[in-house]
């Protein structure tokens, strides 16, 4: 059995769904962030698979996107962790269920 585009896409979508599940269900803010990271990497995997297995006039477009996503994700993690620490300092918890300030 050869491993082709289809298998990579299956792995990518499974990873995405797991990440989504984590992001929506974890009560710990750090856990939610980890879920988001998993989803980002699932997308990265999908992009790279398309870049590797399809003919294109711009063969490295997928790679370029992935490099950008990694960079932006790093920045996002830095900001998000800073926010999490700030929230913890103010509320002494990182439980997202407690953060219902938007509800009047």
């Amino acid at each position, binding site marked *: 059995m050869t491993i082709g585009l289809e298998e990579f896409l299956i792995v990518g979508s499974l990873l995405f769904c797991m990440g*989504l599940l984590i*992001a*929506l*269900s974890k009560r710990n803010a750090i856990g*939610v962030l980890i879920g988001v990271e998993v989803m980002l990497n699932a997308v990265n995997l999908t992009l790279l698979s398309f870049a590797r297995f399809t003919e294109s006039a711009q063969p490295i477009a997928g790679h370029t996107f992935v490099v950008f996503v990694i960079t932006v994700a790093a920045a996002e993690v830095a900001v998000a962790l800073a926010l999490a620490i700030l929230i913890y300092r103010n509320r002494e918890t990182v439980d*997202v*269920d407690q*953060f*219902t*300030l*938007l*509800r009047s």
Partner: protein
Amino acid sequence: MPLFLAEMLEVGVPTIDEWVVWAILAAPVVSWLLIIAYLRKLPAIAGYATILAVGVSTVLSFVVLFNVIDATGGPVVFSYEWFTAGSVVVNFGARVDGLTAVMLVVVSSVSFLVQIFSQGYMAGDKGYGRYYAHMSLFTASMLGLVLADNLLMLFVFWELVGLSSYLLIGFWFHKPSAAAAAKKAFIVTRIGDLGLLAALLLIWARGGTFQIDEIHQLAITGALSSTVITWFALGVFAGAAGKSAQFPLHVWLPDAMEGPTPVSALIHAATMVAAGVYLVGRFFPVFEASADAQTVVSWVGAITAVVAATIAIVQTDLKRVLAYSTISQLGYMMLALGLLGYVAAIFHLFTHAFFKALLFLGSGSVNHSTNTFDMRQMGGLYKLMPITFATFLIGSLSLAGIFPLAGFWSKDEILHDAWGHDRVLWAIALGVAFMTALYMFRAIFLTFFGEYKGGQPVDHHDEESHFHGDPAHPHESGWVMTIPLIILAVPAIGAGVFNMAGITDGLARLLTGALPVPDLHEVSFDWWVAGSSTVVAVSGIAIAWAIYYRRVVESSALRDAFYPLAVVFERKYFLDNLYEDFIARTVLQRWWNRLLELFDTYVVDGAVNGSATVTREVSARLRVVQNGQVQAYGLLLVAGVIIIVAAVFTANPL
């Protein structure tokens, strides 16, 4: 004068300077603007400004009349485009023909004399400046009404006339009865005006024009179906019936006597109430084309004449006798118009304007020295007020139709037309002529003969009253009031010369010249008709003399003898009860308002409350979704995306 007119007829060249026509209208407009802007606090000048302006209009009206006589009544039109609405061009223009010229002279000259009389009658009134402002506005509107060359412009001035009438009836608005009378006049005439508005819209929709001569042509050529013509004619007549106080819309005119007496003389006797007759005369070719409309007009006129004359017999207020007399005479004119007696009707309008204005001013003169209009408080005034008595007698004889006064010739012509067309209507008209003589001389004997009964004592606590004399010792009014009476007595005697049956036909030529198909009205003299009308008039006077002077029979005994009938007359055929108690109070205030209340409770409030309830219920169920948890929002977002993706793929399968 007849020979002079006949010579003028031969010339036949219309030469009217345009500025003359517009100046007639502009002069009172200018005085009105000046008074409301600057002169309200300067009453002396306000009075003279109005008299001067109306004087200018009067002189120019005579200039126009003589020029139109040159043109044998043919129309001259000065018209400018006012605005365009779709395919209809509406003009602002003046149409001068025989009918217009006659009306111009009547309106401006009677107005002129009334303004002079008012100087004496209104002297010392707090609203003197305001009075003259309203009078100027009225005169301007009335002149505009008769000059208008199209129906829309006519309608505008028609409503302005109604407005100024309202302002003047309610002139002493601090009296509740005057305020109520003004409202009543405005509302009742508005019911008729609705008909005129409907006619206006109908001719606009079907005929596509407002120009009077084009409407004439539409009627003559039969370009419009007879149904449309009939409805148009009936709509116009409804407007005329409101303004000219025809049954059953006549109820406002007697109440309008709450206004100052010169106002009653000018507006509610001589000019404005004649506007309805003028309107029907203006659209005479349309009425000629519709037999149904003619029947309606003549019978409404006949009913009005009888109803008003019978009520006039039992009135105790001098001014109300004259008011019902006016309604009755207007009914006479309508009766004539319905029988195609166009010349007869306008001729009667012409003579009636003078002698009825004279009678009203005479009653004002009496009021000025006795402080009352109640004939039961008068009597014996002929010695004390000889000029007023003499002129009042002349007016009454003219109104009663006694040879050779003006009223004889015009009333005779109406009777002659009725005799030729419809004997039933002729008999009714003859009966009304009898009653006219009876009630007028009843009024004369009660007012001027017998013992003086003291008038109405002056109420010195009433600060609004401007009465200065001593009612216990009545005296003749000043020159400023008697001179207009004397001047008006001249046409009341002699205005018949313009159209003596079988002798002169100057007015008939002038009036028929205004019609699109000039058809010279044959004026013939019928001894039988003239004789019968004279006999009934003299017998009416004789009966009044017997009852109210010689007291052969006590009037109270007569009242008992005809008890049910007398009550019907005294209660004015219960029409006021029908309108006020039944229609206004019961139907409108009770039933209709109850209906509106239900509508308000269940439909209006229901819609408002219902929408509030729906919003509240829906939001109560949606509120749980907004719980403030980011993860819940994210879940909904994903669910939304899934639904959209599923929908897209279902619609476009791969």
